[in-house]
């Protein structure tokens, strides 16, 4: 009986399938427990936003999903992370192959400086396959750049270094690089925090397109951004999941006072 339930078709739409599910997920850096048992699901073909103050564990959470967390020395996890029902921390799982299924876009646009725009897009492909026919490579480059809404801007400059692009273009290049390997999930760690409002709007616009093909989890400091782009929003505080609900509900009438205080700007 909230605003969310009034959205047209909300009641009729089929319940989305969970893509990622975490059970009692805990994460440590050394002896510091940064996630304190997260039970959460990320629904397929939706944008799930994770908000919360700095140090609440929201970035760590998504880094546990593609096993990037463990790349930091002394980092470890406990609990269970399932991708389509499969335990991604199982003994038979290759984290390298997992990361091809679960792409990641970072806070700072980070195209590879030694590579051209074209080579950046193909960087991931070159890792997973030995040889690419030239025509096939061209097709992949165009599809990925179109998917990242960058093709029209760079189609005549594919040989130029990726670093020659503007910040917003670089970030879209990074998105193109991620989707070129055809992942199922895109994890985004504050992808717009280094971008100006116009570049941000382009990426947000792109997210609405991307979620048709991919499942997206986005960590953001910007509550308005979470409100704009996501279907569901999770609020983290001090390593705990305080509340997760439809974005419409979270930003109009959250049920937890801590969520309310955070999103209305009442700190400490």
């Amino acid at each position, binding site marked *: *009986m*909230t605003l969310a339930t*009034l959205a047209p078709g909300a009641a009729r739409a089929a319940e989305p399938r969970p893509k990622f599910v975490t059970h009692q997920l805990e994460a440590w850096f050394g002896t510091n427990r940064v996630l304190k048992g997260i039970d959460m699901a990320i629904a397929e073909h939706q944008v799930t936003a994770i908000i919360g103050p700095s140090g609440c564990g929201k970035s760590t959470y998504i880094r546990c999903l593609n096993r990037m967390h463990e790349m930091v020395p002394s980092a470890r996890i406990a609990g269970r992370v399932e991708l389509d029902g499969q335990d991604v921390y199982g003994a038979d799982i290759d984290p390298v192959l997992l990361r091809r299924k679960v792409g990641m876009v970072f806070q700072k646009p980070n195209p590879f400086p030694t590579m051209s725009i074209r080579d950046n897009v193909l960087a991931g492909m070159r890792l997973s396959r030995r040889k690419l026919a030239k025509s096939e490579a061209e097709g992949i480059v165009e599809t990925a750049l179109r998917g990242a809404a960058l093709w029209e801007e760079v189609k005549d400059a594919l040989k130029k270094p990726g670093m020659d692009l503007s910040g917003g273009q670089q970030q879209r290049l990074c998105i193109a690089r991620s989707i070129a390997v055809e992942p199922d999930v895109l994890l985004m760690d504050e992808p717009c925090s280094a971008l100006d409002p116009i570049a941000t709007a382009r990426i947000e616009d792109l997210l609405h397109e991307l979620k048709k093909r991919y499942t997206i989890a986005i960590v953001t400091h910007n509550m308005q951004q979470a409100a704009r782009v996501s279907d569901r929003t999770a609020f983290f505080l001090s390593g705990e999941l305080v509340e997760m609900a439809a974005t419409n509900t979270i*930003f109009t009438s959250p049920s937890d006072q801590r969520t309310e205080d955070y999103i*209305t*700007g*009442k700190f400490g």
Partner: protein
Amino acid sequence: MTRTHTDREYEAKLDELRQRLVAMAERVDGMVEASVRAVVTRDTALAEATIAIDREVDRCELECDELCLLVLARWQPMASDLRSITIALKMVTDLERIGDLAVNICERALQLNAQPAFEYETIPKMVVIVREMLGDAVRAFVDHDSELARTVLPRDDEVDEHYHTVFRALMQLMRDDPTLLDRGIHVQSVAKFLERIGDHATNLAEQAIFMAAGKDVRHLHKVPRT
């Protein structure tokens, strides 16, 4: 509501909006009270003074709307703040309508005062209930008290009941004595205006419930929610 906003300017603006709404509600409540008194005591001067107050109320409406727009543009409020702004925008409309209805009652008072006295005891009873509803709805909004707001809703039925009683009684009187027709219609209008004020007070109460609980209780029987 233990914590305050970290941004004190924002907090001050939201507080200012609350105070303006309360001041507007008090002014409107005063108009309702005075308008009915002007009818009952046949006080033409009071009726004219009350009609003049409506301009103040209109100004309040404009100022509140402007403040809401400014807060929306500058702070992009969320959650309870967002509800309070959107609700405030609706509340000023209801309050302004109540003010207009009080003006309508005063106009009837002027008409009635030009004719021989004709009294009807149910009118003062109605105004007591209607003013309580209005007061409780506004207090419930300010205090985020959905329980208090919920008590307002059934009282609207009481008001409707009173109106129908008045209507039937007046019909009977006018049928018996056609010379009362003119005055009877004016008194019936006053009762109708009070009944409408009750409806607006009910709207305010529903808005207060949404403000406090985040639940929209309007049109529940017509638009079911899952």
